[in-house]
């Protein structure tokens, strides 16, 4: 199993201890994970993500278990070439941050990027949020990735696996049940931000949507890597040992 939702690099709105790839490698070993798809956290806030992608590939090079998930901004000139370059350099997935780029729910660029990722046979990774809405810095006005935005990207999609990270039950259900069965088959969710007992929202989603829709993710270094492990350990007995989708097999 891998961590499909990890980053390296700092966060603009608060200090994060040691967000370096070497530390991440040790954390993965401690958590019993085989590797991670790793984004470059500062790039989400850059206008041009290219320098951040360069930093990401360079930083991860000594760590073969850390697979790069660079970001591609579909409203930036020549993004198609940037995507091709990222894939050539070994990108395991492509990250995109529509709220941080001011791209709305009906943005055609995101649908184009989704299609291009499918053509390149790489998953598209979206991030619902980096921090709890209640603690946002006053300069952080982007808001959460809306369910409408995810639906807008996922509707009609048949070729690209879409992984949405750090979403909660409300967003997940609103998207999942707002898609056709064929569209749902292409959308996956990490479990880093879904509550366990007593609300037992993770258990509910596993029962109603199926465990195959979910992957393991931590949101490290923003959040404690132990959280998804704790959540799985506290599942009710009938879900004990449930198998999540392993995206490293995609």
């Amino acid at each position: 199993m891998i961590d499909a939702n990890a980053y390296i690099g700092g966060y603009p709105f608060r200090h994060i201890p040691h967000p370096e790839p070497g530390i991440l490698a040790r954390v993965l070993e401690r958590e019993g994970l085989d590797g991670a798809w790793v984004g470059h956290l500062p790039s989400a806030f850059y206008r041009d993500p290219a320098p951040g992608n360069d930093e990401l590939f360079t930083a991860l090079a000594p760590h073969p278990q850390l697979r790069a998930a660079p970001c591609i901004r579909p409203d930036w000139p020549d993004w198609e070439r940037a995507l091709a370059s990222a894939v050539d350099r070994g990108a395991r997935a492509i990250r995109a941050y529509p709220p941080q780029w001011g791209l709305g729910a009906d943005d055609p660029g995101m649908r184009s990027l989704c299609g291009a990722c499918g053509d390149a046979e790489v998953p598209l990774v979206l991030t619902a949020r980096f921090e709890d809405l209640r603690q946002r810095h006053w300069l952080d006005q982007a808001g959460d990735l809306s369910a409408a935005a995810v639906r807008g990207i996922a509707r009609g999609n048949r070729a690209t696996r879409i992984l949405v990270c750090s979403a909660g039950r409300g967003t997940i259900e609103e998207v999942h049940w707002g898609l056709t069965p064929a569209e749902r088959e292409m959308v996956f969710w990490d479990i880093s931000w879904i509550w366990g007992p007593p609300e037992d929202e993770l258990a509910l989603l596993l029962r109603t949507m199926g465990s195959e829709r979910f992957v393991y993710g931590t949101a490290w270094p923003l959040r404690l890597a132990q959280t998804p492990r704790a959540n799985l350990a506290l599942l009710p007995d009938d879900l004990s040992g449930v198998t999540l989708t392993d995206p490293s097999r995609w």
Partner: protein
Amino acid sequence: MAPSAPLAGPGPLIDVHAHFFFDGCGRAEWDSLNRARFRAGERIGISLHIASILGSWGRFSPTYFASPADTARGNDAMQAIAEQHPDRVRWYAAVNPNDTDFALAEIDRRVAAGAIGVKLAAARRADDSLLDPIAERAAAGGLPILHHIWQHRRRHWPSQDASDGADLARLAARHPKASFILAHIGGGGDYQHTFAAVRDVRNIYLDLSGSGVDRGMLDDAYVAVGAKRLIWGADITLCTGLAKLWALEVIGLTSDELADVKWRNAVRIFTRLQWEPGTGNRERGSRDGVTVPGSPFPVPAK
């Protein structure tokens, strides 16, 4: 680790910030929520849930502005749950300080019935003088006050008259003999502001509960106030509570400090806690140390 071993490891564990629900409250699934808390508590290894019920959870009056009738209704239900589960539940008397006379009478009545602390939510700002008689009563009775906190309140938030760490620090300074538990540093807002606000206020303890699991939060809390003023709790997300226990093990706390956070600090400040070792998760606590007057449970010497 064997499957039946507590996920939090051996030894006592006290959750100082738990909630229960009851038939007729604002949550239709009240029974499954209570059962889920007990189930997860057993799995984690929680020896005691120190819990409160905030009125009717919004059914007849707002959760954070409970009417006197609702306050009594919630405390009745909480008392009943504690009486049904004397092996693993203790409780706070929840009160609304706006109804001051009623609140004081309710505290007296519920303490006589077994409550060991006072729960204040967000019906009045913490530094309001209206809270003074309640803090005096709590100090005199050895009742810690668990106070709902919004970490760094920079504006009004809906449905509550929230207080932050600076507000609570002013109340705590006026009542140095009372113990205050600052609720859920992971419960929303800017916890770093809280740490700065209460660092030097020795009678404020930080409750680690809340859904927030930011990396660095526990480290900074430990640096700010030390292990003697950190108290474990889960509030309404036991999964994040367990994750924090595991994180505490890797951020540099000694086993002794970890025991302080997991249960010793709670035993130290809940002076009315009557708790026989060997109950709850059936893990025995250390017999070394001294016994606080009024409590049969041993705590380490200072």
